């Protein structure tokens, strides 16, 4: 008897241990994901937006202390031509890039295997007072006479507010996520504006107006549509919607923000409909009767009693719809055209954060700047959905009961 009891207790303990272990694994996995994401993502702020092997150098008499990625880009684009614009002397900037050494030196001077190149670079920098040289670290010789200009690290604000996303640009990557954030918000906003009235009307129809028989058919099928993979919706958008938009609005390409919004709206509809319908049906019959008994029409009762009563459920539906739309990847990737510019029209291509990650992760080398930048995008996405979740947890849920 005693032994039996001991064995039973032991078994209990073991099982509890296993369950606890799996719960712990889950918790660790969750925390791991977050830590990993942010560790990699924050890494982007720890370095200059330039490949590690590359350096920028100027003549030692040049007084310019530091350059921002933006300034360098403008110099290379020809938008900044004078050192004075950077706080230096009133001379024009002379660019030197390893790619075009042949214009400065003859093949003989460089030697057959470019063995003289480092020395020539050194000489050139020493000679030209206004040079801004951009070359590989390995070309620095012992008696290097120029001054290496440090490139500013990427700032959080620059990252968030710069309006250019061009992570593979040379010599410095442009990592401004503003166009992507705006792209995401634009597409989401229009999607919800489209889906909300349609979804709400459908939910009201199903909950209040339709006969029970129609409802019993509509409800499960609409739930089913919520399960269709996003890539299928994207495919549909690509073969039907995109050509349609191109024709109707007479635009050069049909892959536009509008196409993305419509596809997202279609995808958000089942979610919005099911959740709002559920909450509309929780409105107590007594309230409905009280309203009707006062001479209100059914229509008035819907708007004045039932919808206000279910408003928190409807808000939940909207919030979940927004959450889904913000994170949606494949469908958006397939139909928005993915132009990383600040959106200015729904009839032009734009690009969202998730689509950027999906489109560029394949090209980014592991651990590199671009890779980390994509992780930082992932963090932004995570934070966005986290906030949405918090709103849901603390604002919508408690109101329900």
């Amino acid at each position, binding site marked *: 008897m005693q032994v039996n009891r001991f064995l039973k207790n032991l078994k209990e303990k073991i099982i509890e241990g296993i369950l606890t272990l799996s719960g712990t694994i889950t918790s660790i996995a969750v925390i791991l994901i977050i830590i990993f994401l942010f560790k990699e993502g924050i890494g982007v702020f720890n370095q200059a937006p330039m490949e590690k092997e590359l350096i920028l150098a100027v003549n030692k008499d040049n007084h310019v202390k530091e350059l921002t990625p933006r300034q360098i880009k403008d110099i290379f684009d020809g938008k900044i031509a004078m050192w004075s614009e950077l706080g230096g002397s009133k001379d024009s900037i002379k660019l030197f890039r390893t790619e075009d050494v042949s214009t400065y030196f003859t093949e003989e001077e460089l030697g057959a295997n470019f063995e003289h190149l480092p020395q020539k670079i050194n000489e050139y920098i020493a000679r030209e007072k206004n040079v801004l040289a951009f070359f590989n670290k390995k070309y620095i010789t012992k008696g290097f006479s120029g001054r290496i200009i440090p490139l500013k690290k990427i700032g959080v604000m620059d990252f968030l507010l710069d309006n250019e996303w061009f992570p593979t640009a040379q010599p410095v990557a442009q990592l401004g996520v503003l166009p992507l954030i705006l792209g995401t918000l634009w597409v989401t906003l229009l999607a919800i504006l489209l889906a909300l009235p349609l979804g709400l009307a459908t939910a009201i129809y199903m909950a209040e107006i339709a*006969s029970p028989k129609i409802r019993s058919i509509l409800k499960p099928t609409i739930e089913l549509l919520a399960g269709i993979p996003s890539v299928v919706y994207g495919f549909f958008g690509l073969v039907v919607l995109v050509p349609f938009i191109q024709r109707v609005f007479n635009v050069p390409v049909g892959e536009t923000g509008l196409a993305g919004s419509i596809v997202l709206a279609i995808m958000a509809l089942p979610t919005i409909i099911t959740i709002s319908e559920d909450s509309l049906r929780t409105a*107590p019959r007594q*309230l409905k*009767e009280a309203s*009707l*008994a*006062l*001479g*209100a029409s059914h229509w008035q009762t819907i708007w004045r009693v039932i919808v206000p*009563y279910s408003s928190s459920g409807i808000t939940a539906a909207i919030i979940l719809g927004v959450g889904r739309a913000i994170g949606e990847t494949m469908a958006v990737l397939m139909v928005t055209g993915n132009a990383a510019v600040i959106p200015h029209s729904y009839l032009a291509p734009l690009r969202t954060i998730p689509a950027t990650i999906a489109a560029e992760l394949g090209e980014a080398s592991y651990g590199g700047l671009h890779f980390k930048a994509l992780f930082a995008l992932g963090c932004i996405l995570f934070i966005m959905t986290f906030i949405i979740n918090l709103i849901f947890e603390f604002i919508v849920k408690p109101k329900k009961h």
Partner: protein
Amino acid sequence: MAKLETKGVDLYYGDNHALKNISMQIDANTVTALIGPSGCGKSTYLRLFNRMNDLIPSARIEGEILLEDKDIYEKKFPIDILRREVGMVFQKPNPFPKTIYENVAYGLRVNGIKDKKFIDERVETSLKQATLWEEVKDKLRKSAMELSGGQQQRLCIARALAIQPSVVLMDEPTSALDPLSTHKIEELIFLLKDNYTIVIVTHNMQQAARVSNKTAFFYLGELIEYDDTNTIFTKPAKTMTQNYITGRFG
């Protein structure tokens, strides 16, 4: 002329014959109590007068139901005008999750009244009629859900009175309330009797005896006996009624 009248009314829920050939006349400015055991059809009968049974898709009604000699189930009779004329108070207090003021104003608003002064005045009068004014006059903009159960029920009465009906139907209005609140509502019914025709469904025999002029006893969908309350409770014509009011069954 009777205020309310039914002539040979039958009501079916699907196959269930819930009301059987009921004919009854209710006079203006009286309180009529409908009594009987659960499921006897008294609530269903009450709901004929403001067509609340219409909400149940399987309900089928035969016979005539008249309000001041007009058939209220006739197509031409607008249902909202009927419900304005015939107010209702429900079993459980069911204020809207709105402010006290908006609860009382609701019936006016849905009936197209926008005149703010008029609404203010109606809200005050109705709350006074429902003897709630003194308790809530300083918190009209507070949610009605903050009131106690008894106050909520009186608010529901005020809400029904605001649109100036001539008939008030009450479906066991005190069954969810404590004795003190019940007492207040009964006093209120007594006060309202002069101006309104009140039909009240009640489980509580003493209540019927206290507040009503006439009492109708329902059993299994039939109207067993209908007479002055005094007669019903002192010398009923039918033994079944006798048995019920003395508590031998029910």
